[in-house]
């Protein structure tokens, strides 16, 4: 047996003996007590063998990567294509940096706050620095007796935490200072994302115990980010030139690439939330396919009727609206319900992003609230409807449509209030301390050259 072969085969055995490496950093490391490492290991392997299926592991790792693909390059391009060329890199940089920062704080305390112990509203610091997590640690799935490695679960959920603040920044694109965007993300994740994630997904989370249906995190991710973005857009104020100059997307091609990658990646998001590669995953998958298709058609048909021309930006906006709306419902609806939900989401978001938004006059640069907020609210509430067996949904024990819709609405309201109020506070503090916006000259000339010292394109 060569050394290398040995070292890998033997690693799991060794790991049982490894206590947390950096005890000074760990707030609450699990004591490495009990049976000696070798026995512990044997037991762990035994357990792993009996409850972990490699097909699930393969799928959950794939799903984690699909969500990463949604962030960079997916979301970065989707948003980047919509701004002017002079601010392209600022968007790419914000998305990349937020992604990196969130991953680090996820390991430091985010995972623990979201998923470990605590009360109905927030977790605790018991797994800060991933204290006590080893390759043998397992996480439950929704099926009794089926588990996945905890590191895989941590990776999967880490990608959710990484994308959510990045979604919000589209609302105030092209006009906020880079350090402020990053500080906002850290504060907002800490005081909004981790608590709401805990409420929806934590073992004893408030919304979970209330009975709210949210298969893949429509509330946690989309409504949450949508309202935070709207608050930021309003507090920051409009872009220079908004309403007077032309601010067209600089490359709808990048937006299409981003949208395509978001669609592909969203299956990691939705079907990954099933935590298993089982037969039920197939239903989640087809719903995610056809709701999107329905929403593309919904937006383009209504735009064609109202505006006279169906646009490609409309088509991809519809796709995202449909994906947002099916996110909470993807494990509840049937395929026909999903198509209808998607189509309705396409139409409703179209009206919001055109008529309603223009009536209010605020400058949500990339329609984060109009697509993620509105689509998310619609999806969350509609989940209470399309779950109905009478509409082809999968049903729910003791299901009553009115009751369920009320439960769903409660989840929406709590998220809107919590995220909205906290965002007002965070942005106001940042505005007072640092100021949110660069100088007018900098904004005019573009954030790329001024904040990052580079330009996106040279001929």
């Amino acid at each position, binding site marked *: 047996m060569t050394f290398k072969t040995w070292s890998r085969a033997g690693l799991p055995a060794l790991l049982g003996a490894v206590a947390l490496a950096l005890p000074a950093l760990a707030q609450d490391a699990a004591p490495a007590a009990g049976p000696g490492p070798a026995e512990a290991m044997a037991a762990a392997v035994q357990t792993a063998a009996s409850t972990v299926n490699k097909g699930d592991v393969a799928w959950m790792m794939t799903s984690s990567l699909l969500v990463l693909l949604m962030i960079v390059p997916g979301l970065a391009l989707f948003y980047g294509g919509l701004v002017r060329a002079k601010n392209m890199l600022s968007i790419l940089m914000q998305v990349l940096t937020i992604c990196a920062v969130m991953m680090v704080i996820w390991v430091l305390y985010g995972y623990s706050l979201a998923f470990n112990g605590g009360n109905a509203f927030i977790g605790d610091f018991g797994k800060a620095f991933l204290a006590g997590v080893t390759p043998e640690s397992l996480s439950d799935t929704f099926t009794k007796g089926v588990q996945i490695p905890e590191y895989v679960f941590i990776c999967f959920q880490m990608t959710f935490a990484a994308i959510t603040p990045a979604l919000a920044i589209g609302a105030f694109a092209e006009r906020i200072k880079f350090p402020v965007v990053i500080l906002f993300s850290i504060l907002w994740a800490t005081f909004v994302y981790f608590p709401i994630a805990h409420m929806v997904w934590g073992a004893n989370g408030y919304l979970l115990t209330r009975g709210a249906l949210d298969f893949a995190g429509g509330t946690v991710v989309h409504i949450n980010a949508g309202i935070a973005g709207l608050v930021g857009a309003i507090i920051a104020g409009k872009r220079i030139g908004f309403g007077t*100059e032309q601010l067209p997307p600089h490359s709808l091609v990048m937006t299409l690439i981003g949208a395509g990658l978001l669609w592909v990646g969203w299956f990691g998001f939705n079907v990954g939330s099933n935590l298993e590669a089982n037969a039920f995953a197939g239903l989640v998958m087809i719903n995610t396919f056809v709701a999107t298709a329905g929403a593309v058609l919904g937006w383009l048909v209504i735009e064609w009727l109202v505006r006279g021309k169906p646009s490609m930006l409309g088509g991809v906006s519809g796709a995202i609206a449909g994906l947002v709306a099916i996110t909470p419902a993807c494990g509840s609806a049937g395929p026909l319900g999903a198509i209808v939900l998607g189509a309705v989401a396409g139409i409703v978001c179209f009206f919001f992003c055109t008529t309603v938004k223009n009536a209010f006059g605020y400058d949500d640069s990339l329609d984060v609230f109009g697509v993620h907020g509105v689509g998310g609210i619609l999806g969350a509430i509609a989940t209470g409807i399309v779950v109905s067996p009478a509409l082809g949904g999968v049903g729910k024990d003791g299901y009553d449509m009115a009751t369920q819709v009320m439960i769903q609405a409660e989840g929406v309201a709590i998220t809107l209030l919590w995220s909205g109020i906290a965002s007002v506070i965070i942005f106001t503090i940042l505005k007072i301390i640092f100021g949110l916006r660069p100088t007018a000259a900098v904004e005019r000339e573009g954030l790329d*050259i001024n904040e990052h*010292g580079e*330009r996106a394109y040279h001929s």
Partner: protein
Amino acid sequence: MKIVMAIIKPFKLEEVRDALTGIGVHGLTVTEVKGYGRQKGHTEIYRGAEYAVSFLPKLKIEVAVAADQVSKVVEAITASAKTGQIGDGKIFVFAIDHAVRIRTGEVDADAL
């Protein structure tokens, strides 16, 4: 007939166009150019390479007008393109012998 050629800051285009239509000038041609002058540029850094960028994006506007309109046009451009900051640009005026509208073959004043 004269051509009034102005180098302006890019974001001023709409204002200048409006100022010109305001005085009855309904045709112009715009070119994206890069300008070098007193306005200082930036340093761009790409990993280890530092480049001083002294050419800044500007727009060149060319308007052909009757000679007697020149001063009005120059004034309109000056007023609308001005920010008071360095780099606002220049206006140059030169004479043309001849103008033709391709579609109709009309010449000179009729061609504008």
